């Protein structure tokens, strides 16, 4: 594979993506909601951390927290304990939605969108190999997804620390759990979004259809969210590393299928 050709496709796709508001809007809106609105709501809205629902959440999550966290939180009032649990544990899975959704939206535009806009034939006629085309398009989905994830994580960290430093007297983030999630599980989740979208795009004709189907990928993330809320699964560094390995195994399987489905003949027959 000639990397210069893969990067050529990557740069071309990226130039297209940044000029497409249908793609850029979810890339901007979703991170803003997660990184700014959620921490602001949790820390600034009076009494949002009180009430029977939160008490239930405390009862289910608190006993399953790592011992060090339980000891550290023991000296704080319950509302403050709740803020810590929400910001450090409960909302963590939302940061897997960003790489999944952003990579899914861009991959939908890159693979299904090219068919829909009938630009694929000239691209396939160019002297580029299947692997160069695929790698370029995968990079064009992966790089912005990880960029958005890292920027969102940085913003979230700054927001959370700025809003909570006065209450706690120390910085809540970053910690090892979050670093493992952002640097290991998020890239694996992004590849999951791309691999699934490559397969979906080989079966559908249009960008929107591919995007809608790839949005179903957030379902496993919601399962993680409910797993934490029920106290069944607390996302510590070890759990996240195990999840990363599992997701990477699924990624490998999805890419295996995706590459076998990247058939020029089928793509051309679907673009007319």
């Amino acid at each position, binding site marked *: 594979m000639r990397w210069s050709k893969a990067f*050529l496709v990557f740069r*071309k796709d990226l130039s297209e993506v940044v000029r497409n508001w249908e793609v850029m809007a979810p890339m901007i809106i979703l991170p803003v909601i997660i990184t700014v609105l959620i921490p602001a709501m949790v820390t600034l809205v009076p009494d949002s951390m009180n009430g029977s629902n939160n008490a239930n959440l405390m009862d289910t999550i608190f006993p399953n927290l790592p011992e060090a966290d339980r000891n550290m939180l023991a000296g704080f009032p319950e509302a403050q304990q709740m803020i810590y649990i929400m910001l450090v544990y409960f909302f963590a899975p939302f940061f897997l939605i960003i790489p999944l959704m952003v990579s899914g939206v861009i991959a939908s535009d890159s693979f299904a969108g090219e068919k829909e806009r009938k630009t694929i034939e*000239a691209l*396939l006629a160019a*002297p580029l190999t299947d692997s160069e085309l695929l790698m370029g398009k995968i990079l064009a989905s992966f790089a912005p997804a990880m960029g958005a994830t890292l920027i969102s994580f940085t913003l979230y960290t700054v927001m959370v620390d700025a809003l909570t430093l006065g209450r706690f007297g120390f910085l809540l983030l970053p910690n090892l759990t979050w670093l493992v999630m952002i640097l290991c599980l998020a890239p694996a989740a992004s590849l999951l979004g791309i691999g699934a979208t490559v397969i979906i795009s080989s079966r559908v004709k249009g960008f929107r259809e591919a995007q809608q189907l790839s949005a179903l990928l957030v379902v496993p993330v919601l399962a993680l969210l409910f797993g934490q809320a029920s106290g069944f699964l607390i996302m510590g560094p070890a759990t996240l590393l195990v999840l990363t390995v599992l997701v990477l195994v699924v990624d490998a399987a999805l890419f295996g299928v995706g590459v076998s489905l990247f058939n*020029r003949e089928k793509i051309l027959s679907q673009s007319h």
Partner: protein
Amino acid sequence: MESIVAEGLTKRFNGFTAVDSLSFTVEQGEIFGLLGPNGAGKTTTIRMLASLIQPTEGDAYVGGFSVRDDALRVREIIGILTENPSLYERLSALENLEFFAKAYGVGDPQTRDARIKELLQFFDLWDRRGDRAGTFSKGMKQKLALARALVHEPRTLYLDEPTSGLDPKSAKDIRDLMERLSQREGQTILLSTHRLEDAERLCDRVMIINHGGAVSVASPRELRQRATGAHVVRVGLREVTRPLSDAAEAAEGVKALDVRDGALFVTLTDEGYTPGLVRSIVDAGGSVMYVVPLEVSLEDAYLKVIGGE
């Protein structure tokens, strides 16, 4: 020297035969036309010759490279104007050409920039080079797509309906360009078109295909002659009289004669009988004002070939 050699090229889709055992050769510098009704297999043939899709049976060699085994090399040496302009509408004209120039290996920035400028100026798009392709008219998009096909100076060009959607002036410019590329620069052009006047004017030979198979391969002139099966001349006389038409009818090689519009329409078995025909009329006292060979149009010939298949 042969630029394209097709040997039993066949393509089947789920049991449907789109192209059936096509065999033909195209010489270097030749403009070779592909004619046929919609669904005849023209685009599938071009796609196989561009190594975009694999033949089910047979093979073709472009510049000596097999479309089956050397797909990348084939794609490197051809330029293709696809059925749709296939432009990136969010990118500017310049960005579209830069991407494809790099994809086709035009690595040196100075050469690339000069080539792109030359093409955009030729197609009157230089002033709009920074505008998104999506803002262009259909004709401008067609020109930009043609510029993209030419950006790496390919030895062989596949053009699918190149003058489609163009105004008469632009269409003429494209036809002139094709002639220049073929005659002066020795580029081989495979032209798929519905515009028979384009085929007639430009093509050295045309292949009429229908139901995936070759119905006829010949020069446009040969096709017209085959369609009439004879040579027809219009003989203008100062005055048409019965003795003169009888003399003409009695001349050697005359198959049929018709008198209308103050002229004789004489069908000869061979054009070589024309001087004898004129002599017979003059000997009978006629004053010949003009002799014009009449041929059926390529369109008539095409319709006859397709209809009679």
